[in-house]
């Protein structure tokens, strides 16, 4: 029987992670399936704190401090749900309990509306990373490249955008 961690742990294998300093977003490129995920700031913070040793409550406290806004366990669970769906979490013992997690709509209803509040609601946008042949704009982190000019970062290392 496989033993799972009791606390959430972010997947680290075959991922390229790039933080966008200006927006606070994090782009995670999944090398396993050529998929890029854009994590908004709150879910990016949750992702960062999923070290396998922090409980949901501890993560909520850490994120609250870094956002300087209340960020409760329910929102952490919503973020974990999104991370799980994006295959960015390792299996963990609490995952099954996330089945009843509230939706984004419920979360918005719970914590209020408005651009500032909405930005706190965990959100992951997933795209299929384009190849250079298909791109008319810059390529995200992890995409295949032959020139740094093709990459949003301007950095093409070992045929992959950094």
């Amino acid at each position, binding site marked *: 029987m496989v033993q799972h961690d009791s606390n959430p742990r972010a997947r*680290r*294998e075959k*991922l*390229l*992670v*790039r*933080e966008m*300093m200006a927006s606070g977003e994090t782009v995670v490129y999944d090398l396993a399936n050529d998929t890029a995920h854009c994590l908004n700031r709150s879910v990016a913070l949750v992702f960062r704190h999923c070290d396998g040793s922090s409980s949901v409550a501890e993560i909520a406290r850490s994120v609250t401090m870094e956002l300087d806004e209340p960020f409760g366990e329910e929102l952490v669970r919503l973020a974990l749900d999104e991370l799980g769906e994006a295959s960015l979490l390792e299996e963990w013992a609490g995952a099954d309990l996330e089945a009843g997690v509230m939706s984004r709509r419920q979360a918005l209803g719970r914590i209020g509306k408005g651009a500032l509040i909405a930005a706190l609601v965990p959100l992951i946008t997933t795209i299929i990373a384009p190849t*250079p042949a*298909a*791109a*008319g*704009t*810059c390529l995200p982190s992890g995409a295949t490249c*032959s*020139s*740094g*000019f*093709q*990459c949003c*970062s*301007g*950095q*093409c*290392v*070992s045929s992959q955008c*950094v």
Partner: protein
Amino acid sequence: MGSAGVTRVLDAGTAGITGTVTARGVRAGGFARPVGLVDRSGNTQWQLAGSSSAIKMVVDSPGWYQVSWQDLAGAGLNVDEASSQNLQLYADGVQQPMIVDPPAGPLSPTPSGAIEFYGMPDDTPSSGSRTYWLIIGDGPGLRVEPSNGTQTGPGKVRTVAYTVESRERTVYVPGLLNGDRENFFGPAIAADPAIVTLPADDLSDGSGSLQVAVQGLTGDPFTVNVQLNGRTVGDLDVNGAEWTDRTFEIKADDLAGGDNQVTLTRQDDSSVALVDFVRLTYPRTTSASGDQTFLQFDRAASGERVRIDGLTSQNVKVIDLSDPSRPAVLDATVTQAASGFTVDVTVPQSSGTGGEVPTMLVVDGAQAPAGIQLNSPSAWHRSTNAADMVIIANHEFMSAAEPLRAFHESEGLKVAVVDVQDIFDEFSYGSKSPHAIRDFLSRAHSVWSTAPRYVLLLGDASYDPRDYLGYGEDLVPTRLVDTDELETASDDWFADFNGDGVPEMAVGRIPVDSAEEAVATVQKIADHEASQGPLASTLMVADAAKGDNFAAMNQRIEGHLPTGTSVENVNVDDVGAAAAHTMVIDALNGGAQLVNYSGHGTVDRWRGDVLTTTDVAQLHNQGNLPVFTMMNCLNGVFQEPLLEGLGEALIRAPEGGAAAVWASTGTTSSSLQEELVRAFYSELRNDPSLRLGDAARRAKAAVNDSNVRKTWVYLGDPAMRIEGAQ
């Protein structure tokens, strides 16, 4: 065996160590320039560049050079006229000392003679070589003097600290904003560790150091574990996307004779860094290493005797390079040993004037320059020059410029065709440098009796002017500048003398890579200019609205087009990308004379593949070459040897393509691009006889954004008009 006071050796002779920066190589580092002064007035250099009898010798690695009379005579030195005492050697406009054999008298009876000198290459982002100029002067030239040594006896110093360095240049990173420093680095520290190999021969007792320098690329701080031959020597903390170095102490036991492997491993799963250099300093015997061995000593060792063994010749020279601008031959006692020869010599005194440390070069065999040739005299600095247009061409493309020169002279412009090497000779002592082109244009602008208004650069450029990657050197350099997001090419920089981003001359480039391509492309453009009729048809292409409404942008620009032209609109939102692609190709082959694209794109394509470099082969519009304005990102890139830009592909297309392309080498906002292109067309609407380079220059003046001003490049002839005679 003594080792007191000896601290460091710099090498240029270990097997496989070339002394130069190579894409995959190991080199010595840290030597000062060979010249103490640079003649900034230009007067001396202009005399050298104007000499029809000067011999240019190109040096691409540090070392002791020897050139025979036969080689000099073969290059064109008139030895019958030369008196050896009047031979003079120059670098950077300053006379350099040399050894001349014979030291006096006529040269012709002594064909076995030679000159010898210490040569040191440039090490700039543009050049890894330096030109030494040999002339027959009016008086005696500077000579290398013997050092007045008084000590004798066997050497006691037998160990030195010796430095070898790996500085690979395999990755170019345009996304790194680091000013004038080059954006080339070595292997990546990513999912796989970087492994660097350094040779360490003739190991001795004692400790050493390992210096590791990396450029971080990712945002978060991270740690790189450093191992030497499988043993961790420490960690290097990298503060995100910054350059960082650290020096680790090592023991002789950490090293292996021969190759030593340095392994750099990130301690997380996502950070990426590139190796700048790895420098190993280790205790080494004073054995000679190859033909030339650099030895650098602690000041405390001055006056001590050192023994160097492992020499193959008794004709060894030991040169004092403590002040590289004044090398001196040291007294050396050569002794035959059981195997080869040894030499005992006194460590020179440091002059102390420039913080120099005692340094010597043991020469067991001299090297030859990378190139020797007779100077082709030029005098483009003179105020008596006059031209409305200057074509700066790679030497191989000079004759290809003729059709455009002839066409513009036929319409009353005075045209000067200038070999770019002449500009380097007059304005950067012979070394390749974009600054030389700017200095030349600035001088022409201010002192020529007729100041040029148009500048055409005939030849491709590269972000890799030193050809680290092996795709060939650039032919007429560009200037790489930092913008808000990336380093990229800026040709208008050459004529932006007051630094406001708006050039004082209209600059264009025909980015051709071979003489054949130069002939075909220049002829294509000259034929177009000579035969073009009135402007009758315009194609406006709009990308799908995604954030910006590109069709609306085109509509606004349409109101500023020159009068009398029909307009065909192709909007991706209306017809889809695939149909738009077909319509664009058909319109181009149908004779569209003016094309504007508003939308997204990258180096080689418009978004959705509405037009790509691979489409260029389908264009057969030789009789109606259009002018393109491309309001997107990066279509103007011509400096990328690994990926052809759409603009340069259209210009170079043999059976059609474009007469001119105005596009950005960078990323600029669509609203600013619209402002720029609207101003461009307004200028042409107001005066259809305006030359396109003038319209582009005035349009830049109307847009107060530094990224737009820097990155928009005009590919084609800047003196071309939008339409021919009515």
